[in-house]
């Protein structure tokens, strides 16, 4: 209490707050009700995240069917089988392949669209409306829309457009193993690029204007400013966008399930669909859990890279 007395110039109200803040009664306030505030979340968290993680681990060590009856402990058999199962490897590969194919166009297109919108400075609502609205559509709508747009070879929009351009229609967009995955990637870019577009747009608008003004005074051209100011200033955002995109792409399921069902020839079936097939249509939920955990390991690796990156960038920001 006496410590605050010498700071007489402070307005009396503020001094009172400070003095009060040090009183034991207020200090005690900070320690009150912590568990009450956190309990509702922790209860739900324990029931629907922690418990399923443990249950999944237990199930992956047994031969549970979907009804959860007649479970027998089989040790690591499911994991051993998963690592030997060629369908695990091929569907894992489809997931990784989709992630590799989709991440680059999704990040680059998002950046290009944001640069266009940012530099044009006009009709912002139009750019947001056209590039971001698809992101607000459910995967069910997007998947069915694109399915009916590209699948019918005689009356689908894609082939009609090709025909009107004088090009050869009849590409097996979803039925030819060479194009099916690319069609899924195309659909996904159309659907979700708006998210990256928004993240880049926010980052562009945060770049201090005076950097550009200084460069302009030095006679730097537009290309020079892009390469030496804009892109370096966006590097942190790019790192975040890439990792978020990797994590999102690895979870591919909806579009594939709706548009190809994993076909043709299971050439697009992602690992999540294999989990679904094994557990929910094949009724081997123990095995499905084991496959899930193999996939989980992949996600954790990417997440840990992300964590290291954010920690490093936070340390850099703190300097």
């Amino acid at each position, binding site marked *: 209490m006496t410590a605050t007395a010498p700071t007489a110039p402070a*307005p009396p109200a503020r001094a009172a707050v400070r003095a009060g803040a040090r009183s034991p009664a*207020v200090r005690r306030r900070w320690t009150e009700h912590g568990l009450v505030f*956190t309990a509702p979340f922790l209860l739900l968290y324990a029931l629907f995240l922690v418990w399923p993680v443990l249950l999944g681990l237990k199930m992956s060590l047994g031969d549970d069917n979907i009804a959860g009856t007649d479970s027998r402990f089989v040790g690591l058999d499911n994991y051993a089988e998963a690592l030997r199962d060629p369908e695990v490897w091929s569907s894992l590969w489809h997931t990784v392949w989709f992630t590799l194919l989709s991440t680059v166009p999704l990040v680059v297109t998002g950046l290009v669209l944001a640069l266009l919108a940012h530099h*044009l400075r006009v009709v912002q609502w139009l750019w947001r409306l*056209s590039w*971001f609205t698809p992101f607000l559509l459910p995967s069910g709508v997007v998947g069915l829309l694109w399915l009916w747009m590209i699948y019918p070879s005689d*009356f689908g*929009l894609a082939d009609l457009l090709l025909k009107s351009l004088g090009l050869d229609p009849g590409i097996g967009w979803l039925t030819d193993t060479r194009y099916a995955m690319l069609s899924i990637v195309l659909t996904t870019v159309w659907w979700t690029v708006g998210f990256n577009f928004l993240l880049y747009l926010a980052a562009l608008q*945060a770049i201090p204007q005076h950097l550009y003004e200084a460069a302009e005074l030095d006679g730097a051209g537009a290309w020079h400013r892009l390469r030496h100011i804009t892109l370096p200033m966006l590097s942190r955002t790019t790192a975040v966008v890439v990792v978020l995109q990797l994590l999102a792409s690895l979870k591919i399921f909806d579009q594939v399930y709706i548009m190809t069902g994993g076909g043709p020839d299971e050439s697009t079936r992602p690992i*999540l669909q294999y989990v679904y097939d094994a557990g929910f249509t094949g009724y081997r939920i123990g095995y499905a859990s084991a496959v899930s955990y193999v996939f989980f390991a992949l996600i954790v690796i990417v997440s840990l890279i992300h964590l290291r990156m954010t920690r490093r960038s936070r340390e850099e920001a703190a300097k």
Partner: protein
Amino acid sequence: VSATVKAAPAVTPDAAPDTAPAAGPGAGSGRRPRWTPGRVGMLAAALALAALWVLPLAWAVATSLKPENETTRTSLEWIGSRITFDAYEKVWASGDLARWMVNSAYISAVTTALTVLTCAMAAYGFSRTEFRGRRALYGLVLAGIMVPPQVLIAPLFAEMVSLGLVDTYWGVILPQVAVPAMVFILVKFFEGVPRELEEAAFVDGAGRWRVFWTVVIPLSRPVLAAVAIFTFIQTWNNFLWPFLVTTDPNAMTLPVGLVNVQSTYGARYAQVMASLVIAGLPLLLVFAFFQRQIVRGVAHTGLAGQ
């Protein structure tokens, strides 16, 4: 007290990058850009790309307005012999779409309310109170950010079977509520808010609970809105979990019901497109009215990983 009040707006972590979209990209410079050939070229490119992005949506609307027997013509026609709402009447008449829309709205609203409430309370508890095990519990919550719900579908489904929640609203809602990333976002926000405001309220004799509702919640309105918007969009659009946990068409959400029923439309192309337009419309209408808030909410919540 006046000093602390003045300090408060400055601490909102979203102040700098997020108010920018509202102010417009020309913020600060104030001069009108000139139409150089380079900018005209950029405008042309942007317009072409915008058209490309609108094309599928335009096709869906155009097809849905054609008479059914003209939808499978093999030449590119945007408008049929007449404009008709037949397809809309037919798909709406079955009542399925309306029911799924109600299901989706109910599930999304309850999930969003519960998520915002429980995550805000938990974040406040973790950032502003002291209790035994606080750090360990918060660490456990942070670890959960790495667990995507998709890898838990098998055990979660088994859990729902034993709880008897398959084909119920709660079966869809409950697993989507405890989102550790949202707690993380809110903890970061609360940590940036100076304690003086709450202390002033304590001195005035307010209890913990009242301070939370009358000081902290009003102060966090922008970040809570961001979390709410993001959660609502995610829940409305979620496919995998509602798809797994509902088998009864009466309990399905809109996206799941649509996919489930699509085979019954058969080749009735106008009806398929009409149902997609109806299903896509609600969020697009919401977006039309709350464009700025949604853009800010998505950008803010999406970048929180930074």
